[in-house]
């Protein structure tokens, strides 16, 4: 039975979170992400969950990590300056392996920038915003339906892998209204965190297991373990022993390599015979998709590679779909961020060209078509 409704991207993130079993939200208002908080304040009480508007983004991120430490599926949402403020406590979640989901709706920056205008300037911050080497997963929906399904996937990945997941959308996707059929988008089965069970004697909260994902000791279940942002041993207590410190840090990043197949997700549009490959995400990928259609109508074989998982970057998937392409075009609403990764991977094989826009307007299909024609001539 179809249940067609008109829904906004931000609201779809909130409804996706509820569908994924999220029962805790803490946030602080900021344009263009506030609708996520507003929707969560309405929806969470209905499922017996908790919404709280904290005193700032630092506190919101702390409260989300705190609720998740208590065993709940927890989320926050923010934009621009708020994303900057969340970084320290996000880093704590990366280090202590506390599941959480952060929706970041990108607006023009730096600083207060252009609060109501779209941008894609947080691509690098989403990967490297908190200090130190750390594991993180970043998903990039490009439609309202995907805001829903990718937020569900964000919860699946964070709960399963104990790695914070950022859902990175631009203001256009966040405020876009599209018709979706939510019934058709329901998850088959909810993914739940593996909680520690069994013997309490000698229990190690960060034990090295085959899947590198230690079972989570839920407070109240009798494990009485210690959680810290200090580099820690499998026992959970701090260490400065060089070999042990390195092993502890390496496990958290190796974990992502081990589960790379579970994490990676891309959309390929006519890449098989593409002479020109476009790599784009979010609203820029929507424009690129139209550009591919328009270019093909003119006899130009263009294709699109759209990473739905931006970080860890789907390196092998991109390489596998380059085939006979003569150049790669990377349109993005920043001064060249994702292109750095594409250049790192591909620049030895073929030219990688950027199309950048930072004026607060989305990139149009016509601009991409014009750039492709320029590149091919």
């Amino acid at each position, binding site marked *: 039975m179809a249940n067609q409704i008109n829904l906004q991207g931000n609201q779809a993130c909130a409804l996706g979170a509820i569908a994924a079993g999220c029962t805790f939200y803490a946030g602080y208002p900021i344009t263009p992400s506030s609708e996520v908080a507003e929707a969560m304040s309405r929806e*969470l009480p*209905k499922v017996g969950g908790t919404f709280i508007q904290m005193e700032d983004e630092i506190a*919101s991120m702390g*409260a989300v990590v705190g609720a*998740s430490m208590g065993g709940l599926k927890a989320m926050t949402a923010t934009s621009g300056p708020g994303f900057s403020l969340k970084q320290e406590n996000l880093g704590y979640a990366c280090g202590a392996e506390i599941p959480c989901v952060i929706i970041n709706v990108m607006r023009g920056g730096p600083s207060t920038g252009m609060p109501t205008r779209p941008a894609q300037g947080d691509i690098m911050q989403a990967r490297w915003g908190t200090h130190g080497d750390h594991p993180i997963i970043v998903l990039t929906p490009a439609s309202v339906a995907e805001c829903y399904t990718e937020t569900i996937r964000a919860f699946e990945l964070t709960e399963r892998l104990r790695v914070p997941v950022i859902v990175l959308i631009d203001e256009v996707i966040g405020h876009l209204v599209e018709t979706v059929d939510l019934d058709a988008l329901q998850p088959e089965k909810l993914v739940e965190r593996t909680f520690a069970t069994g013997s309490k004697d000698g229990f190690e909260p960060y034990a090295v297991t085959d899947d590198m994902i230690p079972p989570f000791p839920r407070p*109240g279940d009798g*494990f009485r373990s210690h*959680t810290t*942002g200090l580099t820690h041993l499998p026992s959970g207590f701090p260490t400065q022993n060089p070999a042990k410190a390195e092993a502890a840090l390496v496990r958290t990043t190796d974990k992502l390599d081990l589960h790379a197949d579970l994490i990676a997700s891309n959309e390929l549009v006519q890449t098989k015979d593409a002479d020109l490959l476009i790599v784009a995400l979010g609203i820029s990928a929507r424009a690129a998709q139209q550009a591919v259609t328009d270019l093909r109508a003119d006899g130009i074989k263009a294709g699109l590679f759209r990473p739905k998982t931006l970080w860890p970057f789907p390196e092998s998937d991109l390489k596998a779909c380059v085939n006979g392409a003569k150049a790669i075009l990377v349109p993005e609403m920043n001064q060249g961020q994702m292109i750095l990764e594409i250049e790192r991977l591909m620049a030895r094989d073929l030219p990688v060209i950027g199309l950048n826009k930072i004026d607060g307007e989305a990139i149009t299909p016509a601009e991409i078509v014009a750039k492709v024609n320029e590149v091919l001539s």
Partner: protein
Amino acid sequence: MKDAVETPLNEAEFHINDYIRLEQMPHFLCPGCGHGIALRALLWAVHELGIDKDKLAIVSGIGCSGRLSAYIDANTFHTTHGRPLAYATGLALARPDLHVIVITGDGDSLAIGGNHLIHACRRNLNLTCMMLNNEIYGMTGGQVSPTTSPDRYTTTTPAGNTEPVFDACALATAAGAGFVGREVTMQVTGLKNLMRDAIQHDGFSFVEVISDCTEIYGRKNDLGNSPEMILSQKSQMRPDAYRNTVDVPFRPNALTCGVLTKTDRPEYGKAYRDMTARLRGEGK
């Protein structure tokens, strides 16, 4: 934990080893550090209240004070500098079945975490916050803090402190905390009783422990060793009926110890849960 008030106290003798992680010994505190006495008083209070260690959650910030969580045999969370109240807010809302106790320092909760402290006081979620005030940033080697006394030397006030100090208890009361108290570490029984009442209070409770950083603050300001420091702290306090011993002369301008504020306000977690139950009941 409202009905805890009626629960009779655990009469069994208190043995600190039942509440600490012996395998984490030796602890890292300097000899004479007041933080250890505060830890003992807290655990004694937990013992008297008969709190199940499985249901005890200790959330600490960063500092020498923050390090105490690692020594407690409970669910312990050593969080980020200044933010333990934010983490504890999430944890206490998520898990109303837990006793959530925050251990923080003067720098942790009055400087970097000041905003979280005043909002925790205002919100009145069922949490206990124990602030160890040693008038200094101990962990980072002795820089000035918002409670460093006038003229005192620290590594960042080489000519003596020129900044005014915060009165943490007045701040907490003004911000709406329902239970506010203060005690010196010399009065370990009084501190235990105060912590006990704070934990039993239904809502947000704030306790300032006048602690001493012997090794850095004491040394730099010629305040003597631990015995001299805690004796002089005690003598600067106004005695109070709350104390077991009332043996110091009355001083009009001194800080007051004991319970300074006690008012009953609606506990936030319950208020929120009542609201959501009402919404669901109405089928909204």
